[in-house]
């Protein structure tokens, strides 16, 4: 059950791309093509997953959170619903993301609130992921960032990688001043993504435990490590289901959010 992982990965890597073409078009730069190949496995219309999110503070794990994730790419719209199943204190807490809008349901009161658009930059559920990291909509990294191939021979965990620098395209607002992606040369797996702000690498996302699901390779483990706080967030996907019948249009509504238990 790794749907949440998949969701995160898809989101972080700019999933949404409804009409995404996984193959680079003629004339595109090498870097752009590499990024698109790396993004390709994360693009799916419907996805359901269950995963465990564990936040480490100063190296100590806090109680793991079991999370169900539903996501849907429909036309120009991106929907996702994250429901906390464990621990007991947070059971029933849910986040609904529809494009740029975000709602939260509180388990303790059952109330639903719409969050301001600026809250998307905030930490999601106390983790090292922001809501934006988790559900960045749009047209994929290549369409939002200018990619530049910096090296073809760097190594991450003993694997030869492409090192690609991504900078926001002119006129596009980004939470990060720069992103550096490390992509496996052999299989185009993302291995690491470094996020930069104010000149410094503020956090890194590490991908591992790639397994084949419906003919695509997905990372069953992702770790976002903050470099400015003593925290890291680990997401272990337990179950993942593509084109799951559980993913229905009707669940991506505020009224459904209110009915969650």
């Amino acid at each position, binding site marked *: 059950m790794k749907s949440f992982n998949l969701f995160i990965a898809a989101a972080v890597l700019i999933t949404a791309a409804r009409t995404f073409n996984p193959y680079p078009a003629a004339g595109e730069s090498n870097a752009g093509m590499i990024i698109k190949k790396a993004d390709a496995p994360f693009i799916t219309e419907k996805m359901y997953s269950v995963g465990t999110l564990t936040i480490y503070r100063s190296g100590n794990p806090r109680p793991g959170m079991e999370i169900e994730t539903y996501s849907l790419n429909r036309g120009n719209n991106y929907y996702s619903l994250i429901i906390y199943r464990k621990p007991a204190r*947070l059971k029933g807490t849910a986040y609904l993301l529809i494009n740029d809008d975000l709602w939260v349901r509180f388990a*303790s009161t059952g109330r639903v609130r719409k969050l301001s658009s600026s809250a998307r*930059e905030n930490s999601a559920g106390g983790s090292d992921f922001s809501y934006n990291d988790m559900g960045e909509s749009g047209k994929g990294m290549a369409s939002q960032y200018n990619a530049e191939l910096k090296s073809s021979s760097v190594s991450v965990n003993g694997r030869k990688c492409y090192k690609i620098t991504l900078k926001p395209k002119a006129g596009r607002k980004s939470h990060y001043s720069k992103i550096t992606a490390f992509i496996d040369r052999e299989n185009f797996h993302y291995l690491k993504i470094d996020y930069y702000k*104010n000149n*410094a690498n503020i956090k890194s996302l590490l991908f591992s435990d790639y397994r084949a699901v419906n003919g695509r390779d997905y990372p069953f483990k992702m770790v976002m490590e903050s470099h*400015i*706080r*003593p925290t890291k967030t680990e997401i272990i996907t337990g179950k993942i289901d593509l084109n799951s019948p559980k993913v229905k249009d009707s669940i991506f509504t505020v009224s459904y959010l209110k009915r969650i238990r």
Partner: protein
Amino acid sequence: MKDNKKPEESAAVNFLGRWGEWASVHWKKTLLIALAITIIMGIGFSSLKLELTYYSMMPKASRQVRDLKKIIKEFPAASSIVVVLQAEDRHNREDAEKTVKAAVDNLTKMLSGPGYSDYVSQVDGKIDPAFFKEHGLMLLKAKDIKRYRKIFSDPGLVPFLAGLNNDFEKEYSGNEEKLSEDKQQITSQFKGLKEILEEMKRYTEKPEAERLTNAKLSSSIDRFLFGSPYFLNRDGTMALLFIRPTFTINDMDIFVKAIPLLDRAIKKQASSLHVKAGLTGLIVVGKDEMVTSEKGLAVSTTIALILILIIMILSFKMYSAPLISGIPLVIGLIWTMGLTGFVIKRLNILTAMYMIALIGLGIDYAIHLLTTYVQERDDGNSFTESVKLSLHKSGAGIVMGALTTAVAFFALTVAKSAIVKELGIVAGFGIICELLAMLILIPAILGYRNHRLLKRGKTESSFLNRNKLQYRIVSLLGTGIKAKPLLFMLLTLAAGAVLATQANRVSVEGNMMKMEAKGLESIELQDTMVREFGFAPDTLSVITGNIESARKITAKMKKLGSVKEVESIIPFYPSQKEQTRRIKEIKAFKKNLVLQAGLPGSGNTGGKASGNTHRKAGNNAGGNADEHISRERLINELNRLKDNLLEMSDLAYSAGMDKILYALNSITGLNMEGKQTGEPVIDKLIKSINDTPDAMRNIDAFQKYFSGLMRQKLLKMADTKRIDISMIPDKIRSAYISKDKKSYLINIVPAQNPWITKNRRILLKQLSTVTDRATGMVLAADQMTQIAEHDGIKAAITAIIVIFFLLLLDFRNLKLSVVTLSPLVLSFASLFGIMAIAGIKFDFINIISVPLLIGIGIDDAVHINHRYLLEGKGHIDTVIEKTGKAVFLTSLTTVIGFASFIPSIMRAMRSTGIVLSMAMALAFVFSILFYPSVLMLMREKLNMNILPWGYKNNGTNNNGKNHYRGKSNSDNPRRQK
């Protein structure tokens, strides 16, 4: 090179021999020469300054250092001692909070008394709320004043609760970042709110006569509006007290006495108040560092010294051997410091520490000279002849060894950091001075000793002759190596190669705090402060002479992710433009309050409340203080409040904001896991409202008190007078404005422990986008890490290259010069390998082992080369026996000396002891077991020519003259005695 000249009998070598002979005979004149040099060097010594401060580590005369010096001089708060207080019994949090608060008050009084005035200039246990009570709103941003206006749109109880609920929902619902940003303020609000609700419940239940006075309600409202004046931790069971001392971190002699005195007094008093106390802050860490660096070493260094003395006395058969080697050693140190005084004028932490290493290096020259002298005496030579031959035979090796070591040190001048460059110069001088002191003084002192012995008609001690150390093991090694050179070479090479495979794993300790003693209270309390109070005592600072620049820097710094908090005068002194904006908002706020209160001039008779969207028209819901409160609306708002608090509690739980969670749990009755462990205050209140007869009448009475008090406080806070610097309390002003009133201090509290290299580098990178003027003691750590990470290795590589050329000049043989470096390379690789396996990291102190290892490692090989060239083919056993003894002795004394650091409780000292002892032992192993085997195999098995250019491997030169036959001692003209 003249081909008929024997290389080992160069003019220089002959000069050394002749000098030894002359100095031993004319010892008085020689001693006078040494005295004259010492007097001259004494002049330099007198101008030498000891700069053992942290900022002596940073680039000299840099802006950072200048600013840091200015901060320490102009901002006394920067040298504050932090007292961490913790209630002995923390189970009942409310009682514990009372206990620590009482302790803060008590200790503040005690330390402010005349008994401590010599050391304490000010004590801050809590914030004086007077300034905030008067100018509270002027200190809020305009948008927050607007928020206040909405919350307090109506002084009635229900509108207040509604306003508060609206604010919670608008500002904090689902917004962890905002909750975290306002952590301090919101936590206080929760605590104040809890007290207000409890008071409300009391009013609801108790008959009028039994109600508490307004004082309790007043203090609860104060807490809600201004927070606690104490510096409390997340659950209120700990508190901080800041002592501003009369001394700074540079007054070492004072703080070493004063801090233990304060520590004892505070702990004794705290104990009587049922509180545990501990001191921290950089100045306390500095004191602990000084004390612990010596602690645990007294016994071990005494034992080491006695052992070395015994070894020297027994090895050289002279009771005076320690003096013969010790006097030149000390004189050499004085000359070094004199020369340093003339050239550099200061000793920093690193060069001062190097003086210890110089003792280890300098004594080696004495050991080599005395070993040869004793060997010559044992061979029956006269005193003068023995002295002459000791310099003749060992002199070349000693001079060459010293030159290579000096070059290794001078090579440190390629380093990036100024402090390492200084080390290079001082250490290079040190080696030259020690060499000269030994060469000048040892023959003279031996001459004096001989003169005394002759005068008294005494000979060498028969006891010592009987019991002298024979070093048979060295002879046995010589025989073994001669018999099986390949085996020795392969075994040692294999061991070195295996260890070398791990060498690349050796790492550098970037956290200076991990170099301190384990379990040191001042260090542990720093972690406690981060954990319990959410900040570290070590900040970075920026000073600027311009208030507008201070505003810009403060605003930009706040946006950096690696910065937790920015402290400066700015929050207390808004710009004139901002003050104008705030005044406008405050006036609107005030007008609203006056209007609602129906105060004279408001034109309101007290019926309608504005700004309360929850009040239905015509519903007399209890907005105005004189109105009756609607039970239904009150309960609705209380339930809404409960929901908001629960939701914020969920957010705080998932985001790990424990301080907020504790405060919220005390209202909601939940435990950390979210289980209901107590009845929520709000539920109790609602129950009281529902169950108590006349509850609403009592609530009406409560509203009257509450609204009156709240309005009164808010009106006082709403002073629209512009804030001038002179109005800011002195405690705050003096913390952020310099004594000369020309500079403004901005303290940057990092989000992560800045002593850890990775954290510090991210912080510095982000800070560099705002200013290049950040300074602080933490930056010294950067210098030190740089030394350990780059400079040591860079200098070592440079040194090895330069040494190689020196070897080439000395031996005039490429093969020999290359192979001379091999024991050194193996020693390094093995040392790094062992360190990696044992998990020992390099730090800026033990990195000194790098040049030391180069110096000693090369020396040993050079001595062996010279002796082998002298002894010739087939005499590797003699080489090992004769030179090996001195090499063994130098290694043994050095290992014993450095091993005496190992019992130190200071981790850096301990690791230095381990690393240096290992380095010396490895240098010995590879110099004595590996290197002679290689030399022998090269020359005698592979028939490689290692003789100087112009000589054939059979020892003949281009003219056919045979100098290096190496067949027997008598054949070799260089083996004359």
